[in-house]
């Protein structure tokens, strides 16, 4: 009889135990999150500007810009999507563009929980020619949106410059946090470009017309 007890227990233990999830099935594609201000009128903006350099957040405070050919590929992806939605690239950030687009990449840092705008660095500095205007994420309503930012995360902010003086803040009507493993290989950059394309794909309301 005891043999039967053991047999039954073995049956239950062998077949019935909870299994660890098989995460090997997951792709290397980025998790693409986008958020927008409910009342944002994207048709009211016509021009934009984006720098050819990407802001870097790393453990090295001196390592704050990324401007090689890889960085330019990410910037080019943003430009292509903005052009496809009818927006015109301004000659420079001093040409009074309606929108400023900022790309930030997190490298060699794993940040547990951050709030939108953490990646702007020191608040109270000068951004986009406006000193003392804080970034403002209208969809962040007292804890509604928090991010865990692992290394390799790409962040794209769309900033309302057209109404900055009136708003007295750098209002961000749309933003995307793309989390994956952006490293330095061509495959990684390709995944970053794919993520930027996806951010626009899932935000069909970004249209100037």
């Amino acid at each position, binding site marked *: 009889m005891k043999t039967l007890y053991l*047999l039954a227990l073995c*049956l239950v233990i062998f077949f019935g*135990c909870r*299994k660890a999830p098989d995460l090997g099935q997951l792709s290397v*594609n980025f998790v693409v999150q986008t*958020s927008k201000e409910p009342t944002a009128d994207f048709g009211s903006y016509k021009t934009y500007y984006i720098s050819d350099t990407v802001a870097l957040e790393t453990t090295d405070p001196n390592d704050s810009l990324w401007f090689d050919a890889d960085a330019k590929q990410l910037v080019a992806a943003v430009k292509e999507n903005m052009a496809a939605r009818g927006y015109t690239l301004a000659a420079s950030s001093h040409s009074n563009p309606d929108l400023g687009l900022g790309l930030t990449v997190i490298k060699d840092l794993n940040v547990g929980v951050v709030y939108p705008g953490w990646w702007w660095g020191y608040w109270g500095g000068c951004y986009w020619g406006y000193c003392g205007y804080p970034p403002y994420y209208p969809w962040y309503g007292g804890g509604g949106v928090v991010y865990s930012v692992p290394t390799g995360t790409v962040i794209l902010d769309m900033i309302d410059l057209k109404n900055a003086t009136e708003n007295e803040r750098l209002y961000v009507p749309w933003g995307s946090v793309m989390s994956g493993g952006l490293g330095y290989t061509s495959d990684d950059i390709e995944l970053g470009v794919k993520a930027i394309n996806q951010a626009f794909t899932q935000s069909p309301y970004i249209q100037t017309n």
Partner: protein
Amino acid sequence: MKKLIITAILFLSGTVIFAQTNLLSLGWNINFPGNTDYLTKTSFAGGKIDYRHILKHKNISLGVSLDWASYEQYFPSQTFQKPDGNGAVTSDFVAQVYQVPFVATMHYYFSESKRLKPFAGIGLGASYMEQSLFYNVYESDENNWGFVARPEVGAIIKSKDNNWGLLLGANYSIATNKTESIDRNSFNSFGINIGLVFME
């Protein structure tokens, strides 16, 4: 209840001699998600411990049953739009659901033959559920309790010496565990149980 617990403990230690009215089964559960367009993959990782006390001179038993089932499914990349249209997330993910119902049971036994003891019954109780989503480097968890109702049918195929047998059962479980991330208020499943039952 005290008698029931002591009986179960003694039985698990392998030293008990059961009264003729007690049954204990250990089994393997196969579960098919029911009411969901979310999980569709069958769970083969499940088990059940079921104790029943047959009332004197009646074809009815009262008992308790503890189950567990682990569901896992991979979902290719897809975009989830927030209901208000102001946000979206795109990713592929692995979903895992671990359900542990603990129910009080009542079974009715139909007229039995020498070797076959068919039954029908119901279990009512609590269902603990852990739901995890794994996507890229992230994991999000949602754990909760719900009420569960579980009608079931089955049969015990008794051995020649009449003190053990094979238990085959089928049930439909309706649990009120919520899945807030996909706006679901219940988790239903169809289950098959294959086990050994000991009785004396």
